[in-house]
């Protein structure tokens, strides 16, 4: 049976004639989940989310209900909700659709979450480049306030919550939750060291703070709409709900596909939904969940044991689209932003492209990341420009190994993982690229760096 989509988050925004205004949202069942939520006690809403098994959609996949449990409620300080709409992970463009086409869905999730954690102030930290997106959200907030879904005395409950839309300045590292908090405080987006700066305890203004991804907020709306136990039945045990796969790169139909967790495979996503490779080409590799996740090569076998004891032996095309199965193959579901690379691509150029990204985006706080990302970028680029040595291939790996695990934030891993995963799989091709240039032979036409 070919893979089918199950739109949940994208169900409304895909309807012909669906608009961003609140009347359209209300005609499509909008803010009914919020009504359910405020009729419950905050802790009951937290329980629903915990029971739902929802995992955060920002890339790390941390259980949302558990994150909320960590919130320090004893300090007496105000709690803040910060929504991470700083969508910057290369290959990721799922939150953009929600913001530009169905903003109230996200706002409803924010109102529910704010009620659950009793935050009276929420912030949406949105990419600075989403100029009109920020305006769409501001208009939507004003509409929701006028109808009593946000602002003072929400739905007559006596509870109040304000939302401020805060635009970033074009920095990838501000998608890291503590960098985001620093940025929101009006500073450089330098990530904070954990401990002690766990946001749930010492977050924004050193107050308890929950930082959740934009799509996670939309998912929360559906958790309340279905009820936690019913929501948990969507997907598979351990990974509930839908995942939005944002496929980009070299397939016939790149685009966004919303699939129930675990109910399709990479093969079905890439060949059935995306139409397979461009004519005359073959898919060579994919980066499954945003550029920081480890690359998978077509032709590899993935063998091992899942947490539930099931043994598996998969080709790339067989891997089920759920976070546990993908993690068992040595990579991650991440944001679901799948970048597809075909046989026209020279792998060293693809790697060099990403190395340049991480070198540009390092905040510079930690020496291994600041220096390592720059050296990885320079070494991989010099291979593409003909100055490469055969020793550069192990050198890349050596540098990456000195970055991962040695930095304040996960940018260090993001720098290292593309290199650490690609070098063992494409070493021979890299060496071939070096030799071709030494001999002045023709190299692939597609320029990536």
């Amino acid at each position: 049976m070919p893979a089918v989509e199950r739109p949940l988050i994208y169900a409304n925004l895909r309807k012909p004639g669906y608009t961003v205004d609140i009347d359209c949202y209300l005609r499509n069942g909008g803010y009914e989940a919020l009504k359910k939520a405020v009729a419950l006690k905050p802790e009951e809403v937290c329980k629903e989310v915990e029971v739902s098994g929802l995992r955060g959609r920002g890339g790390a996949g941390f259980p949302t209900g558990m994150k909320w449990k960590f919130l320090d409620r004893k300090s007496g300080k105000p709690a803040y909700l910060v929504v991470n709409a700083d969508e910057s992970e290369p290959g990721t463009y799922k939150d953009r659709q929600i913001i530009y086409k169905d903003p109230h869905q996200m706002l409803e999730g924010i109102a529910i979450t704010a009620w659950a954690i009793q935050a009276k102030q929420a912030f949406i930290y949105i990419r600075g480049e989403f100029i009109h997106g920020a305006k769409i959200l501001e208009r939507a907030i004003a509409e929701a306030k006028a109808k009593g879904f946000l602002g003072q005395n929400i739905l007559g409950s006596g509870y109040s919550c304000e939302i401020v839309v805060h635009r970033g300045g074009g920095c990838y590292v501000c998608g890291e939750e503590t960098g985001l908090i620093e940025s929101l405080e009006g500073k450089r987006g330098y990530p904070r060291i954990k401990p002690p700066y766990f946001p749930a305890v010492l977050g924004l203004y050193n107050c308890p703070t929950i930082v959740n991804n934009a799509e996670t907020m939309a998912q929360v709306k559906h958790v309340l709409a279905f009820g936690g136990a019913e929501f948990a039945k969507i997907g598979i045990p351990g990974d509930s709900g839908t995942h939005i796969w944002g496929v980009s790169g070299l397939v016939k139909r790149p685009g966004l596909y919303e699939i129930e967790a675990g109910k399709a495979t990479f093969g079905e996503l890439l060949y059935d939904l995306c139409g397979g490779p461009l004519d005359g080409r073959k898919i060579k590799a994919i980066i499954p969940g945003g550029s920081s996740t480890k690359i998978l090569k077509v032709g590899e076998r993935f063998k091992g044991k899942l947490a539930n004891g099931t043994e598996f032996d998969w080709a790339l095309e067989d891997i089920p689209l759920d976070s546990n199965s993908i993690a068992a193959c040595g990579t991650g579901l991440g944001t679901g932003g799948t970048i597809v690379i075909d046989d026209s691509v020279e792998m060293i150029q693809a790697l060099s492209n990403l190395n340049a990204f991480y070198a540009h985006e390092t905040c510079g706080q930690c020496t291994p990341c600041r220096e390592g990302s720059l050296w990885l970028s320079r070494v991989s680029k010099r291979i593409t420009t003909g100055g490469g040595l055969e020793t550069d291939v192990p050198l890349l790996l050596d540098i990456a190994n000195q970055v991962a695990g040695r930095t304040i934030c996960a940018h260090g891993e993001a720098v290292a993982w593309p290199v650490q995963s690609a070098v063992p799989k494409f070493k021979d091709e890299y060496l071939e690229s070096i030799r071709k240039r030494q001999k002045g032979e023709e190299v692939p036409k597609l320029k990536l760096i």
Partner: protein
Amino acid sequence: MHESPSSAPARALKPETLAQAPAIIAQYPQPRSATMPLLHLVQEDRGYITQEDMTWVAGLVGVTPMQVLEVVTFYPMYRQSPIGRRHVRVCRTLSCALRGSYALMENLEQSLNCKRGETSPDGDFTLEFVECIADCGCGPVVHVDASMHENVKPEDADQFAAQLKATLKDPSYGQNPPVPGTPEWNG
């Protein structure tokens, strides 16, 4: 890569810009949080940020001008010198590169008579490569001022450049409310 401050004298900020500041600051529990929105406000007014602006923002949010400069120099979107009349930003990162953004950039350099990272001699265009702007399924994408142009193929660079040049003579450019599905809406 950060630009050096301009030596040309800057005009004063518009009164309506100055008038918006108190409401922006009042949104936040702590005034310093208003640093970034105030800098965006200044840049939208004048096109870039001067030392005087930073001193003004610093005074409003209760920090030193140096602390505002730290912010300005950290975030790639802030500028300390003027740019061309149209700001053309081509996405460089992998998804767009796989769909031809490097070839597109080379072609646009010709069509706009402007090298990447520079402003054209006539001051009409500033052309830059930028990192991923989160529209990866429609690559190559080009962000022009506040509009997002999707699927701009390398072979269409001439036509795309002509379209951008036409906007220079359009007095209503950027004035009309965006319509869903257009580059202006998606910007």
